[in-house]
């Protein structure tokens, strides 16, 4: 234990001790330090010339009196200069902090703006993807009443069929009086009858046989009559015969039409749900200028029976015409005319214009 203490004491020879502070200096001079403290001060004084010189000076009374006020004024002088510097430092630090804050805020808002714009773009893209053609059609279906006044010809095309359907029934009788158109009209009527008969298969089949039976006999009878009369007379007779035929025909035609109207109505009533919807959807594409899509949709509809088939063929022709494919347009208009439906006149007029 004594060896350890001895070691510690020997090591004290080279221990580093701080200079006397402003409190210790007068106390040492006055002998107001403890033994330990005094020994520590003296240990330091062995090496420190500054402290020893200061003590030597202050031991003289004349300097001791001057020392205290000068020491305080010196301390004050240094503190004042530090304060000024520290204030400048503080201002600089504050400015730096403010600049940092500002720059941080700018970065934050820039990043936020970029994030928001990216989010908006993403949402818009997502919305665009989600909008399928069907939903578009539904949306446009809801918008149709609003869109109608914008496109009057299409509206007419949709609305007219009902009126036109009624008109031919009334018009079928007058052709008898107009001689040049009558022969042209009658074969077409016959053709239409045939087509209608094919459309209405089981009930019309016996009627066709009857008609054909009725129609077939006259030709052999006519040449016999022609042989008996002069050629001129034959000519004159032929026309009334035709007229007679036409006069005869309206009745069965009407009957047939009455018969056909019922199934036709049935046919139109049946697909009206889906066909009307598909037709309107196609019209929307047509209105939007997407002719290819409209054509594909009209094509799909054109094969369906009923008024929407005819209407879609007519619209197909219009589409072809607006695409500049006049050949196809003409063919379609001809088909519509051949169908002899409600759009026949319009199709004919369009054909003439082409």
């Amino acid at each position: 234990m004594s060896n350890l203490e001895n070691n510690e004491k020997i090591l004290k020879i080279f221990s580093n001790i701080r200079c006397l502070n402003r409190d210790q200096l007068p106390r040492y001079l006055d002998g107001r330090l403890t033994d330990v403290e005094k020994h520590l001060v003296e240990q330091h004084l062995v090496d420190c010339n500054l402290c020893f010189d200061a003590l030597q000076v202050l031991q003289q009374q004349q300097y001791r009196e001057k020392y205290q006020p000068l020491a305080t004024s010196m301390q004050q002088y240094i503190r004042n200069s530090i304060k000024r510097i520290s204030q400048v430092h503080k201002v600089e630090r504050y400015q730096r902090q403010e600049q940092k804050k500002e720059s941080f805020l700018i970065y934050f808002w820039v990043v936020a703006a970029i994030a928001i714009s990216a989010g908006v773009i993403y949402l818009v893209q997502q919305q665009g993807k989600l909008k399928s053609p069907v939903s578009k059609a539904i949306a446009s279906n809801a918008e149709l009443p609003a869109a109608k006044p914008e496109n009057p010809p299409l509206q007419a095309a949709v609305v007219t069929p009902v009126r036109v359907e009624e008109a031919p029934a009334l018009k079928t009788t007058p052709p008898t009086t107009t001689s040049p158109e009558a022969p042209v009209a009658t074969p077409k009527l016959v053709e239409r009858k045939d087509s209608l008969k094919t459309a209405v298969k089981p009930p019309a089949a016996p009627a066709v046989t009857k008609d054909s039976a009725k129609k077939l006999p006259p030709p052999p009878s006519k040449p016999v009559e022609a042989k008996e009369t002069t050629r001129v007379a034959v000519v004159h007779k032929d026309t009334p015969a035709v007229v007679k035929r036409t006069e005869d025909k309206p009745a069965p035609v009407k009957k047939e039409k009455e018969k056909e109207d019922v199934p036709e109505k049935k046919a139109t009533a049946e697909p009206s749900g889906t066909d009307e919807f598909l037709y309107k959807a196609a019209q929307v594409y047509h209105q939007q200028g997407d002719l290819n899509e409209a054509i594909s949709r009209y094509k799909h509809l054109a094969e369906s029976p009923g008024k929407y088939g005819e209407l879609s063929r007519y619209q197909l022709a219009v589409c072809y015409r607006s695409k500049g494919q006049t050949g196809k347009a003409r063919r379609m208009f001809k088909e519509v005319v051949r169908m002899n439906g409600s759009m026949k006149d319009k199709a004919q007029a369009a054909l003439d214009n082409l």
Partner: protein
Amino acid sequence: MLQQLTNLSDKELISRARKLKDQEAEGVLMERYSHLMVAVCLPYLNNGPATTPEEVYPALLQRLSASLRTQTIPKANEWIHYTIRAQQAQTEKNSPFFPSTESREQQQMENKVEKAATNLKEQQLLAATMEGVLEKLPAEEKYFLKEFYLHAKSFAELAATKNYTIEKTRQILQQAKQKMASLLMNETYE
């Protein structure tokens, strides 16, 4: 900030003042030694032209501040003492401060002791070497060192035993310590 700086050692304050150009640290260092500067300069005040306290102390502070940026300062008290003496000598040539060989050796020994403070074995080894070196010193120096450090006698007591002045007693102790440091450093180099 000032409160934090006052707790730093001289070495840390000097390094802050030099590397970071921290004038606050410089101020704290000056304030720490200001009372000693005042005391040491007192006999040279009002002795001639430009020796009023208002001129001497700011000039001294400026001189210290200038030398702080350029010079290596292992011990602040030695550096301040050297600068004060240079100012009092009124030498135009501002010769830089260099610590003496004795001072450097002494400081190296102080560092060694500080380093060994946490290791008991090293402490024992160092103490044994120091004891060996102490025996090599002249009898008077050995006596003074033993009495002062091992028996904790004061300057006055030592001076009284040999009828020396306190100044002489301190001088003998200082010389003995320096000799011991140089002997110890030579032993380590061998």
